[in-house]
């Protein structure tokens, strides 16, 4: 039995997007889906755990790929049945008719229910706003179209908007926000993210931070053997090397290490290449360096290339040796190569929609990371 995918457009009119019409369109599509899937599964099960509101960028800036968000959601929905509301702002010239500011398209994607018969259908609403005027409609439409009594997660997986209040308005209605700091490469973007985190009284997930988790495990493991954790109180230097597009991961990793070890004071220092800071606590100080390297050809990878920690007269290192392996070196792990499983973005989003616990460790790491970026060392 194959999955069925059906689409319908809700035409513009006096009330351009009518929630009742959207629901009626879904009912019609589901009936068609059941017929198309062969009738053996004669009933539709509406499975819905979340309202997922996703911002889909237009192809306006490097790294902003509209299809990436669409593909990602297609992979997420089977694991987290949700009503998806996708928001995309298009140029007014693409409006289907003069005067149309917003248009909805509904889509359903149906799969055989796992093990219990029936057909499980997803519900997806695409809202296209034409120009700034169209975008103004989004917050109210999201309020009208969301399934009542279910939480709402906002997926903003591209650069933060430079103007307008759409993000703030959507955040106000959301229970959770999922961002990807990897793409926040514009000047001041991470700082704005920190502001959002501080202001928002909602649970928060950053895919860029979540991608660091396997590496954080391994780095933490270096300090698990008896007597090793104490060395972190005697840090003598940290050096991080990243790919050119992995700078945000690098600075978040530094933020994590420094905040966990209680170092929050730093100032920029001159460096022949990359960035360099002097970190201070009481009478102790040590250098922290971050560089980028683009000549690591041979494997497809973006992120942290190496980390070296000098502490208590010992050296602890982690080096990415190929796409899936890192080498660990420490007093207790001599040249130890281990698998470092990365996660698919869709798996990260599913995890981000899981537990809603506030991640205080992330908040601390981001605060230190943005502090490092506020120094003059960052923009040298």
């Amino acid at each position, binding site marked *: 039995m194959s999955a069925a995918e059906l689409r319908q457009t809700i035409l513009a009119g006096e009330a351009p997007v009518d929630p009742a019409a959207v629901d009626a369109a879904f009912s019609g599509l589901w009936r068609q889906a059941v017929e198309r899937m062969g009738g053996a599964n004669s009933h539709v*099960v509406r499975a819905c755990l979340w309202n997922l509101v996703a911002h889909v960028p237009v192809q306006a800036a490097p790294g902003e790929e509209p299809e990436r968000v669409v593909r990602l959601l297609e992979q997420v929905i089977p694991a987290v049945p949700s009503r998806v509301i996708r928001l995309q702002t298009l140029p007014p010239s693409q409006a289907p008719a003069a005067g149309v500011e917003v248009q909805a398209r509904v889509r359903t994607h149906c799969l055989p229910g796992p093990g219990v018969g029936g057909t*499980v259908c997803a519900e997806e609403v695409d809202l296209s706003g034409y120009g700034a005027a169209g975008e103004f409609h989004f917050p109210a439409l999201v309020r009208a179209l969301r399934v009542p009594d279910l939480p709402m997660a906002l997926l903003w997986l591209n650069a933060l908007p430079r103007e307008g209040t759409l993000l703030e308005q959507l955040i106000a209605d959301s229970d959770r926000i999922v961002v990807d700091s990897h793409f926040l490469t514009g000047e001041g973007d991470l700082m704005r993210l920190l502001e959002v985190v501080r202001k928002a009284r909602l649970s928060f997930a950053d895919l860029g931070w979540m991608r660091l988790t396997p590496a954080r495990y391994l780095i933490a493991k270096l300090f698990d053997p008896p007597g090793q*954790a104490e060395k*972190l109180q005697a840090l003598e230097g940290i050096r991080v090397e990243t790919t050119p597009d992995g700078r945000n991961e690098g600075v978040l990793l530094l933020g994590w290490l420094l905040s966990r070890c209680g170092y929050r004071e730093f100032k920029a220092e001159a460096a022949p290449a990359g960035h360099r800071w002097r970190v201070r606590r009481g009478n102790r100080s040590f250098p922290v360096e971050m560089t980028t390297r683009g000549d690591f050809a041979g494997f497809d990878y973006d992120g942290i290339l190496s980390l070296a920690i000098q502490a208590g007269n010992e050296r602890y290192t982690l080096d990415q040796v190929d796409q899936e392996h890192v080498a660990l070196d420490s007093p207790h792990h*001599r040249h130890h*190569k*281990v698998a*470092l*499983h990365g996660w698919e973005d869709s798996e990260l989003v599913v995890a981000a929609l899981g537990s809603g616990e506030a991640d205080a460790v992330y908040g601390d790491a981001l605060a230190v990371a943005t502090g490092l970026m506020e120094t003059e060392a960052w923009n040298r």
Partner: protein
Amino acid sequence: MNPLRQGLLKERIPDAQVMIIFGGSGDLAKRKLLPALYTLARERLLPATFAIMGVARNEYENEDVYRNEMRQGCDTFARRRPVDDALWSGFARTMYYQSQEFDDPAAYKRLKARLEEIDKELGIPAHRLYYFATPPSTFPMIVEHLMGSKLVSRAYEPWTRTRVIVEKPFGRDLESAQALNRKLKQAFRESQIYRIDHYLGKETVQNMLAFRFGNGIFEPLWNQRHVEQVQITAAESVGVEGRGGYFEEAGILRDMVQNHLFQILCLTAMEPPVSLDSDSVRDEKVKLLRSLRPIVPERVDESVVRAQYAAGHVLGRHVPGYRQEPGVAPGSVRETYVALRLMIDNWRWGSVPFYLRTAKRMPKKVTDISIRFRDAPHLLFGAGDHRGQVPNVLTVRVQPDEGISLHFGSKIPGPAMELAPVNMEFRYGTSFGKEPPEAYERLILDAMLGESTLFIRDDETEASWQFITQVLQAWEAQGKREIPVYPAGAWGPEEADAMLAGAGHAWRQP
């Protein structure tokens, strides 16, 4: 405390481990353990540094033959199948096997040397998780040799902990369970021992905690004021499936009630724990088991009915009776069905009967818990012909088709004020869009992480054996006598119906 660990524990990926499976070539390993481990690997829940060492009597030409046999098991039984070639090759690379007799001291020296080699290959010393998937008679012997070879340590080692998972049956009565506990504790601290009951790994069984204690609306109703009776059914359509010899020794009371049904009973009836840590939950389970009203030996038949299946028809097939099964004595009076009426002597459940039944060769395989609430105090609808009397029943389906349904009355559309029974359904498969993990996946992962909430503590196993042993002794005092029979494909003997009829109750048809 390593400050870099903060916030990482919830990720649920264990530290480096070597899992040593005694009985590593057996049926359990092939059907359950290796498929569960493979699925954990596929879901990237195993540590990056992980190895399996199978230990059993079987001899293989080389380790690749062992790996291939385990792959067949995964291909057939893993939840995520077919097996992914690339993933399997990485998974199987650190799968080892040693053939040995369990009573051979030299073999344990060899085992120790192999494990030290594996540590070197992995690059770091790893935690060791022993899994006893062998007949229980071998457990004391294996423990003795592990101690003799210094393969286990009771000391707390943050970097190289040893733990042990012990499969059921955990003893055959109170005395043997106590003896086994004493033996295990010579080698391990209680916190290192994980007595497994795979029912506790089932998502729906765990959901009983979430359902009861994570929602405000049910717990106020969960007591003798609102609940009339509780029925727990664990029915199997299969017979003894070639395990006639084992079943002759055990019987279904030992095989199912002492462990699985009592665990379900505990989670259904226990008081709210103060937290979800392992001891808080297990303290409440032990309190519940100790609240079970003791059986009066002379009146055991009033609250426990045993029976045996005769030939009959199940799922469209003619099937033989128990006495015709291979390995079963022709005059056997071993029970394949047992039903119990239990009373819990505490404030919450004072007058509520808990009916438990489990059997082989029932019409279908089903495990569920049904809570029947008391009727409305005044009948407004259909008082004359009782058409307004719809029982409110909450049913938790443990298997198959895991979920929860609430049965209640609703007005039939139309001019008349008549009620009809309707169901409100929750199904795991459709609500969450994915099937729940296999019980062994969850339990093995928990043991690797050192989380013991879903495992059985020593006093818990002894409290349940204490109750079961009373029944066994009462039966023994009756001497060998014929027991009721039920035809295969029926829901049990008439005697079990009669046990409920006295209270105006009847078994539900799951």
